[in-house]
């Protein structure tokens, strides 16, 4: 399926969020931290973009949210994957692996 550039960018963040949430329900800050840590500082994401992705994913039914209490007893919104989100994560991961491989091959070629 061909995608344009902005789609790709959204798609990148979406698949990262989905992957993160596959470990369990988290609030927004935890997701941001988790991505930064796993990306070893290479992936710097503007927080606002992350929240856009969260609300977009919620709207599309891939994740749902629920208010809960954080570790330090503050009200925080927790997101978790739905069945649909899990399926989407699987298919998007495949697409991304193939895409990254293709990009890599082009860049590596001499």
């Amino acid at each position, binding site marked *: 399926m061909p995608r344009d550039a902005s789609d790709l960018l959204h798609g990148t963040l979406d698949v990262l969020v989905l992957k993160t949430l596959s470990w369990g329900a988290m609030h927004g800050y935890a997701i*941001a931290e988790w991505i930064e840590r796993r990306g070893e500082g290479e992936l710097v994401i503007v927080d606002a973009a992350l929240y856009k992705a969260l609300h977009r994913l919620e709207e599309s039914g891939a994740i749902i949210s629920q208010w809960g209490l954080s570790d330090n007893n*503050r009200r925080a919104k927790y997101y978790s994957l739905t069945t649909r989100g899990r399926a989407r994560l699987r298919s998007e991961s495949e697409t991304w692996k193939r895409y990254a491989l293709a990009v890599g091959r082009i860049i590596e070629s001499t």
Partner: protein
Amino acid sequence: MQVPSGFRRAFRLPASSGQIARDLEEEVEFHVAMRVKALERAGLTHDDAITEAQRKFGDVQDLRDYCVAIEVPHMQRAHLRERMSSMGQDLRFALRQFRRSPSFAFIASLTLALGVGATTAIFSVVNGVILKPLPFNRPEQLVQLWGIDANGHHLHFADPTFDHLIAENHTLSAAAEYNTGDISLAMNGSASRVTASGVSKEFFRVLDVRPELGRAFAPEDQQKGSPMVLLISHGLWMRLFGGSPGVIGTTVRSGQTPVTVIGVMPAGTEYPAGTDAWYPREPFGEDQSYTAHNWNVIARVKDGLTAQAATRDVSMVLRRLHAAVGEATWTFDGTAIPLRDQIIGGVKVLLLLILGASAVLLLIACANVANLLIARMAVRESEIAVRVAIGAGRGRIAQQLLIETSLLAAVGCAGGILIAAAGVRMLLALRPALIPRVGELSLDWRVLVFAIVVSAATAVALALVAAWRGTGGDLRAALSQSQRTQGGGGASYRVRGSLVVVQLAMTVVLLVGAGLLARSFVGLMRIDPGFRTHGMVVAATIFDDSRDADYLGRRSVYYRQLAERALAIPGVTSVGISDAPPFSNGSSNGTFLVLDNAGLKIVPSELRALFDDKTRTGYATYRTASVGYFKAMGIPLVTGRVFDADDRTGGPQVAVINAALAHKQWPNGDAIGKVIEFGNIDGDLTPITIVGIVGDTREEDLAADPAPAVYVDFDQRPGNSDQMYVIMAAAKERPTIAAARRAFPQVRADIPMRFLTVEDIIGRSVDSQRFMLLLVGVFGTVALLLATLGVYSVISYLVAQRGREISIRVALGASTSEIVGLVLKQGVMLSLVGAALGGVAALAATRVLKRLLYQVSTSDPIAFASVLVVLCGVALVASYIPARRAAAFEPMDVLRGG
């Protein structure tokens, strides 16, 4: 959004876009606070940490806009889905409720269906007959005028009387004479028999209608000797001319007279009812006699005046006329009757009563449904209390009850529409010719909508009241009291009980009415009319050849040939010819003179003196009959002989009389051989000798005593009428009609004819009674059904309410029959009170039936007794079912509150 079902209530959907923004703000605040904390841990100062966290977060405003934009429609959809899903849930719950108690759902919707359907059907029909205004402008101004004779009987108008009235009255803006009969219309080689009215100048000005096509009568059409012109009805235009606009100016023949069609009148304006065409009466000239009572008169009262004023005026004018011309006129007085009253006649009061009762019927249906619903709610009080306890709001409970009752109302109303449509069609199918204007009837949609709104509103209002009571009342009280006390039982049971009693009483009135009409109808149909009715076919003909010297000769040949053709039809055993078939109202009545001997030569100038001698006169129906007439009609010969082939034209004239006349005029039994003169009918003054006496016949009205009659020989006294009837006695009617339709035109194709069976003619003569019987009967049956359902529901309620008491009785050893008896007693009480009240009411109400009843008293004990027995029996059955249910109670279940 796919929400797992467990979450449905656990988290709340955002309620508004403000809520969305606030949620987002809180989320962002939390995020920033966490970030600040982390940055401070990394060594930044508080202020730097805040600046850094905000920088790292990015554009909050943009994020807010983005989220609101995607979430608002989402939120709206979710709310809608939530509402739909709760309604769907309630709908499923309602259906489950109905499955659990199908009898409640069935009875409630049947009650509504019957109430809505029967009320609408009956109201449509009755309303169509009496309440709908006549299809003319200002119909309340239209009156029918009558003269009144010395005995107070209504008289038609004679021309000079009418002219005098026109000249002298002060209350009428227009008045017109009219007279209706059949004429033939011949075109393209075939002739049709149509009903036509000769009308005087002002006729259409009285009715205030104009042709939809062509022109109205003009003064040049309304002179003595003017060529004949015709206005035709919309129906005839369609039937005979295929609705072609080319009809205007077409010339057809009526007998020997050319007639030009000049216009078409709009549909629905056929007056008098059944008229196909109108022609001006003036070309035929006026009859100067004050006693030629040939004309009906309608008039329009001047603006602002009433029919009563017109009556006073007409009465005064005619009394003055009588004072002026004296013996020359028989008209002593006059009256003006509103046209609608004239048309509806004697059934008006009855129809009005039925109309009122149909409104009551709808109320009763609503009350019954209310009863059922209240009983149902009472049973469900604890269920509702539980639902309130686990958090259902008042709105939610109301929604659920509303859905339940709306479902019932929808099913009931749908059934009602079906019943109404079928009912109107059934009532219309009977087409009572004597109840006028019934052809215009159709289902009245306004009534239907009204009935539906009333019944649906009842259901909805009850649901709301129940929801309010169920959720507003003391929860604990509802939980603990329902089914444990007879609380509310006393007063509300009395209310419900009296509703049922009223229903039962009304049912008694209706059923007694139906019973009386039925007994009267059966009586009527059992009357022997004195002639054969089965296998009898009548061919009505118009022999309208030119009236030259040979007219009667040609006519006689024509009918002889028709008779021969008729006899050749297989199955036809005998044929007769007459000037008036049974129930045609076509026979003449008159005064005859008894003479000393047949040789007397009568001088017209001496007649007056002879008629003044009352001992020498008699009054009888005058009929023309052919040789075969008595055999064909099956009228038995009592003594003497009937006509035979030797009674020739020009020979000594003979007559046959009926037993009624023989008994009345010659009580000593010496009628045979007597000579009479009966010239005032056909102008033939030749003395006639009576040669035979035949059996009596009832040919005007089954319920009336046979009229004295004189039959004269068709060959000897052919009369001058162009309308004669060929009567055939056959094995089967339909094949005979079909064969005659083929055979008769072979004699003369241009003579139009209409075929009737005597059975149809008699059936039509009792149409009005049959229709009333049907209307009241259907109505009574519906009322009985509703009353049965009413008894059933109130007794069921009682059983439900007293479940605990009954269980205790069972536990204490009461037998099944004791419990059944206990419940039945209630039903019996209700039905006895209802029957007693209804019986008394019926005694008063059935008096309006008096005019419709034949040889049945309005307090006929058989009708009353059978209705009361039926009613009590039905009430017993209706209370037996819940009684059995009560007896089957398992005491422990009930006592545990299960």
